[in-house]
């Protein structure tokens, strides 16, 4: 399926404009759901830069959400006199830098692992970060951190964060799209398909993997900073969440692993299912998520986009009978 870049940009701008109208027409509950959808979509695309393109599925990206959020919160608390919008930018910068440093440092041992070993080692990283955050007094993880209100006075906070998430998701999508189109992106795909061969053919696999890891971590961390601001108050448990770790994989799996728009579709679908359809059945939540996972793996390993693709292929075959 080939879409010309211009058409893709047009489509993205159009759908973004449509989504931006959301807060004007939706009831408050759905604005909240919309926020969560856009936040999840942003995270899912940030995850897919490493997990989908390079095939390094991380099971611990909540580490970066947490590190970004706490780094931003701790720094912002020391600059309480600054104007709120600047404070948010400061938080984004600090959160991004901290995630970049952390991910670059752990990339050396961690990226030596492949496949499921990498996935679970990342889970370990997220647990270690969460425990350090919770137990070292300096980070105030168990007490919790307050975030200043950054929404301008004349805009409803819910609407403001909805737009902010939309903007963030678009930026992440744009970055991922540019990566996908570039030589770097082609290198990442070659790593996913066969890392040893790619290396033999001269792809700088180590450098590319590390770059993808750092970019993915920074974007995830910055989304975490926005998330923390929209919550207003965070503890360790509210940002280092194992269900986030899992969801990030499920978004891609649901939408289509390795594709650009698959994670967005997956995130929208899963958030809608869990928040709107299962919203009143909290006891049933784990079970439903588990069942969804099992069905997905067994019935649709390619996700929604995979199903679409097989459907089109089938039609094309039907249209042109075998020679």
């Amino acid at each position, binding site marked *: 399926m080939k879409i010309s870049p211009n058409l893709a940009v047009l489509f993205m701008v159009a759908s973004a404009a449509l989504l931006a109208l959301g807060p004007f027409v939706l009831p408050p509950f759905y604005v909240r759901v919309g926020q969560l959808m856009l936040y999840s979509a942003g995270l899912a695309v940030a995850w897919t830069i490493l997990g989908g393109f390079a095939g390094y599925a991380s099971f611990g990206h909540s580490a970066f959400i947490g590190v970004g959020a706490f780094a931003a919160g701790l720094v912002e608390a020391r600059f309480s006199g600054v104007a709120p919008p600047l404070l948010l930018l400061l938080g984004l910068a600090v959160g991004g830098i901290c995630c970049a440093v952390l991910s670059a440092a752990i990339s050396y041992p961690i990226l030596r*692992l492949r496949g*499921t070993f990498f996935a*679970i080692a990342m889970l370990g990283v997220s647990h270690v970060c969460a425990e350090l955050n919770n137990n070292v007094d300096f980070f105030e993880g168990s007490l919790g951190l307050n975030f200043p209100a950054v929404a301008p006075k004349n805009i409803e906070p819910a609407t403001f964060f909805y737009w902010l998430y939309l903007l963030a998701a678009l930026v992440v999508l744009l970055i991922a799209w540019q990566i996908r189109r570039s030589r770097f992106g082609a290198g990442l795909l070659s790593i996913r398909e066969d890392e040893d061969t790619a290396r033999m053919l001269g792809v700088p696999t180590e450098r590319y993997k590390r770059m993808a890891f750092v970019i993915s971590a920074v974007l995830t961390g910055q989304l975490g900073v926005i998330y923390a601001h929209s919550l207003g108050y965070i503890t360790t448990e509210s940002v280092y969440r194992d269900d986030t770790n899992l969801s990030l994989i499920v978004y891609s799996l649901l939408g289509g692993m390795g594709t650009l728009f698959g994670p967005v579709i997956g995130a929208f679908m899963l958030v809608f299912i869990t928040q709107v359809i299962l919203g009143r059945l909290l006891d049933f939540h784990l079970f439903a998520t*588990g*069942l969804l996972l099992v069905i*997905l793996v067994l019935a649709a*390993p390619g996700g929604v986009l995979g199903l679409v693709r097989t459907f089109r292929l089938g039609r094309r075959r039907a249209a042109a009978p075998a020679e």
Partner: protein
Amino acid sequence: MNLIAQTLADGLVLGGIYALAAVGFSLIFGVLHVINLSHGILVLLGAYLALIFSKALSIDPLLTLPLVMAVLFAVGYVYQRFLIQHAVDRSQLGSMLLTFGVALMLQNIMIWVFSPDMKNITPSWAFTSFHLGAVNFDAVRVSALFASLVLLCCLALLLKFSALGRVIRATAQQTMAARLCGVNVRHVYALTFAVSAAFAGAAGIIIGIILPFSPSDEATWTLNAFVVVVLGGVGSPAGALLGGLLLGMVSTLTAQYIGPSFPNVTMFLLLVLLLLVRPTGLLGNAFSASR
């Protein structure tokens, strides 16, 4: 001196249990190349079954061991044959996520059935203890360690000398060659899974005797099993024992000398360190399967 001897003794006991809890995970990974994220839930299932059986039959929880192992053997066989087999030959990530989905569902069911509260099956004789030199041993912990070691030896002998063990090892080494020699690989996969589940259940009983447990503990036991396997090496009881003892020592020493909330941190630091200096695990080839 006293304190360090006591800490090391506690670490030994804990390590034996870690080893038993991890050996099934290691076996499944070595033979099927599946990361079984529902391993922890199978461990807990063993503990809860022991709770039910020991209440229903009013016997000591340790005596329910054969019964629990038999039930979990059957559960493991069916689980592998009807669910995991469909994902085994596709992608590793797929089978891993499948087991994770099952773990979530079972955890939810456990919360419905047994409530999310802590339970325990500590037997009446749990609080007797004896001294060896200056070191204090609880009867319950020593019997737990003893049971773990016996079970690990049984598994090692089973793998080494029985016909089933030979077939399992052959399948692990060269699936294709084993198939050519007439091994029914699907059946062996299912049997391997069944044996692993049975040992997970046994570990559950022993854990339940020492520590209280709740449905949300499953992730801890899965992660522990993973770390043990990475430390020790894949697929052998000896590797699991080495990894388990190492992990047990490290966590008790950390809890004693650094702080009670840091064992996981040191555990994963150790893991990362080991990956740097010896990326294949201490014994054997932990990472060949990941490449």
